[in-house]
């Protein structure tokens, strides 16, 4: 198993792995995305209180879930980079930051669109919404710090420290719904016991969450491939792969 993990640290191996993964998985994941969205938007039953406007949940919740998880991916990559000094982890961290920022932005915008018919306002300073906005700032801060340094290796170290320091915010976001009274619906999906959401609405949601995770992984791999092309453009192994 350790050999496999170390293989990921090798640019040529990772480049070949990413190319194969993207070639085979991207079509499947895109099809699954279409299935999930069509199922959720057309075939799931309407909510008795919100009618049809709740359907944006099938984009909003997966984006929010993956945005939160993505920050941990970035922080973990930072940890690996600082402790084991694996260069590939730097590339991974740099690749995740803009993707996470985009997903957070999608979650905020879809949430706002959902909020207008249900709560009557485009934006409320609710605990969870504000915490997601702070998460967006955290992601953008990491992107900005990468750009601020000219030396790439030093930039990666600084961003690793920043991501690790920022991880204290993530549990606070997650628990915020429980700690403060808010408009936001408390967690309906439970891992133990009965979920408060009906099965006919739950399954397309779970499918979309899985699809978004897979898409996140694929997009990050595409970003990493682009970064490898940029950094190792003239290397022999790359010229051999590109033909």
């Amino acid at each position, binding site marked *: 198993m350790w050999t496999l993990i170390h293989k990921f640290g090798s640019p040529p191996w990772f480049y070949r792995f990413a190319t194969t993964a993207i070639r085979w998985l991207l079509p499947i994941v895109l099809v699954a995305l279409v299935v999930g969205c069509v199922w959720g938007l057309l075939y799931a039953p309407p909510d008795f209180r919100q009618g049809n406007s709740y359907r944006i949940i099938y984009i909003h919740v997966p984006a929010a879930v993956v945005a939160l998880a993505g920050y941990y991916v970035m922080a973990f990559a930072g940890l690996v980079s600082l402790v084991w000094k694996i260069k590939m982890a730097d590339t991974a961290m740099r690749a995740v930051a803009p993707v996470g920022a985009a997903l957070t932005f999608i979650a905020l915008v879809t949430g706002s669109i959902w909020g207008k018919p249900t709560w009557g306002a485009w934006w409320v300073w609710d605990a969870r919404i504000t915490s997601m906005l702070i998460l967006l700032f955290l992601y953008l801060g990491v992107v*900005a710090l990468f750009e601020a340094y000219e030396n790439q290796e030093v930039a990666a170290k600084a961003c690793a*420290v*920043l991501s690790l320091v920022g991880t*204290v915010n993530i549990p606070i976001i997650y628990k915020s719904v429980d700690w403060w009274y808010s408009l936001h619906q408390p967690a309906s999906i439970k891992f133990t016991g009965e979920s408060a959401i009906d099965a006919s609405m739950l399954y397309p949601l779970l499918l979309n969450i899985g699809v978004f995770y897979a898409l996140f992984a694929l997009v990050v791999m595409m970003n990493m491939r682009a970064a490898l092309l940029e950094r190792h453009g003239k290397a022999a192994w790359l010229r051999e792969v590109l033909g």
Partner: protein
Amino acid sequence: MNSLLFFLMVVTLFPLGLGPDPVVLGELAPGILWVVALLSALTVSGRLFSADFEDGSLEQLAVSGHPLGLCAMAEVLAHWCLSGLTLVLVSPVFALMLNMPTSAIPALMLSLAIGTLCLSLFGGIGAALTVGVRRGALLLSLLLIPLTVPVLIFGTSAVSEAALGYDSTRWLALMAALAIMGLILAPLAMAAGLRISLEN
């Protein structure tokens, strides 16, 4: 003396912007005082290490063999005494100016004491990461504000609830937990950040 004047002037700006209605000001007073604390932490943090970085003494400290984290902590705590602690001591005066209920003043002072310490520690981490960077002050604000939002939320909740007559111990306890975590982890993060900045 400068920081006292800064606090006074910023506190004066808020009624000028929001209107002099005492009821409104009384409700907003906890938030206003906490924003003052945050702004002062931001401005102070920008200047924490830059002077030492410019004249090379930071590099000397880093290679001197003394633990860099403790040196940075000394710097941060010294600046905290001049900015955050001063605000704590002067805050009852501002609370009276903004018509905040006097029953909340102990909670205000305690929350500001713990909170400004947290803000100074996070500010030190941000400053350590951005000390050598061009336009670092702007980047520092961008990095610092998300990290300090929990402190702000807990602090204002503590004071608002005390103003309404409830017990605010749980918010103070949460802030104390953040402060303890900061005291233990900030030296590590600051030392790492300073070494990264010196490498640049």
